[in-house]
């Protein structure tokens, strides 16, 4: 799993790639929470287009990111969900909790 961070005018964008599982979800959680609290942008966007698999610990990390963002008045947006990532959110009945768009342009335009 690799994660990198970009800044846009109104958004912090995380580009994640690889599998998010029990081995590396703590690293993703730490990176996302640290940057959310530091940047305090209006939008936090997590780009999962290159993520092939996400397990329940990865979903839990996204929930923590969502809560941290909302606590700071930011929107927390997921984009580019793979079939597997979408299934993980659907099976855990959390798909409706997240704001989800197909791509970055849509996420920034709303």
């Amino acid at each position, binding site marked *: 799993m690799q994660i990198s961070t970009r800044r846009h005018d109104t958004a912090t964008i995380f580009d994640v790639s690889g599998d998010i599982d029990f*081995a590396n979800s703590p690293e993703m959680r730490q990176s996302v929470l640290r940057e959310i609290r530091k940047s305090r942008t209006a939008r936090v966007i997590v780009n999962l287009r290159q993520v092939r698999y996400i*397990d329940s610990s990865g*979903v839990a990390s996204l929930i923590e990111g969502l809560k941290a963002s909302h606590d700071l008045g930011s929107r927390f947006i997921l984009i580019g969900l793979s079939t597997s990532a979408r299934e993980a959110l659907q099976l855990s*009945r959390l798909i409706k909790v997240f704001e989800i768009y197909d791509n970055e342009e849509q996420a920034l335009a709303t």
Partner: protein
Amino acid sequence: MPQMKTFPRPMESNDQQNKSGQRGGLLLMLAVYSNPRLLSAVRGAVERLTETLGFSAVQCRSITRAVDEALANIMRHTYDNRLDQPIALYFRSAKRCQQGEIESGLEILICDRGRAIDMNTLRGRPLDQIRPGGLGLHLIRQAMDIVEFTRKGLTNQLRLVKYLAQTSNAA
């Protein structure tokens, strides 16, 4: 290099499913240490095996997810994040007769030698609560037809079974 540990062997169960059906032979065995970095290797093997057995793409992903979540639970809760503890996975063909139809499937036994699990902790959390944690067991139960936990002696065994779509008995 850690000392080579003896990997746990599966227990024979006497449940109703096995009485009414029949158990096939061993398809695959994996012996791994409790290091989360090995999870991706196991996922790869399970996904290929389920594809080979004819499960649909959705079922292949869900069975793979169930095994991944089960292993992560063992690493985290049974072995308390120690990296060098033995886990053995046995994949066997399974069959049962349901209303005159033969169903083929896959039985997966996941065995460890960690501490005994408190059955109350295996319930998972209510899904209407939006908070991290407690999702793994729900994902396992949603994916599999049978989920059973047994402890015998020093061995924990999780038995997961998934059946393929029915085929005609006469075929």
